[in-house]
């Protein structure tokens, strides 16, 4: 068994509004003069799991996302091994 590290990026589904991201984009553009085209704010979850193999570890992380970490009605997620 060894420890595997992942980063999970959780974002609002693209067809749903992200008022937070919209507001920050607008402030950056209009008040800080930055040519930002799109900005969306999501969650990034750093996680370490113990598993026999990296595949098994990845499966565990996927299960964690489905069970608890991600709301499938409004969020999508990506798992990246570090």
């Amino acid at each position: 068994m060894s420890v595997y590290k992942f980063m999970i990026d959780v974002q609002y589904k693209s067809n749903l509004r992200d008022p937070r991201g919209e507001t920050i984009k607008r402030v950056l553009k209009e008040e800080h003069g930055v040519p930002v085209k799109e900005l969306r704010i999501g969650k990034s979850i750093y996680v370490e799991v113990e598993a026999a193999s990296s595949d098994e570890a990845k499966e565990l992380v996927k299960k964690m996302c489905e069970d608890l970490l991600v709301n499938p009605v409004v969020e999508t997620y990506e798992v990246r091994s570090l």
Partner: protein
Amino acid sequence: MKAAVVVYPGSNCDRDTYHALKLTGFDVDYAYFFDQDLSFEGYDLVVLPGGFSYGDYLRPGAVAARENISRKVKEFAENGGLLLGICNGFQVLMEMGLLPGALLQNEKGKFICRWVDLVVEDNTTPFTLAFKKGEKIRLPIAHGFGRYVKVGEPRVVFRYRENVNGSDEKIAGVASESGNILGLMPHPERASEEILGGEDGRKVFLSIAEYLESRGAEK
């Protein structure tokens, strides 16, 4: 005694703070974010009120702290003016770098609105002259991001008497080294009339009045 209450987009407690200052005999004006030619010239006190400036989007106080009105607030404080940040106002002062540390999400991840017990650690600032050192008081809190994280050794002015939100050393309010800037999470303006449940908050405004009158006498 002239006070200005800054109104950022999303500030909520500006009218409550105006009301409490008036009760204590201040001459009060609003300083709106859309006032272009705004100046704090001739003011004794500037207050950053509670609320959700910019909806608390990204980080509480992050955007408001970088508005040009905040540059004028910083100048006012650096010239020795009295600057009070309440709840969201305290978060803005941190993001402006005028007070040390950071305010993060409450330990249990939930918004908390209730009266809490505090102790006055430092009654030598212009905002706490009317309290006794170590005085036990009760003030209401209403925040979701009030967990104070210490960076270096801040000048602690108020401390919760029991763990409320996971703050380091139960810190509830800190002052700048020189003492002319105070930030605190509890709401003194909500504890300025007995009918609202308590008057301990009034002493913050009375302290400021007392300080200004004594300083006025010296000038």
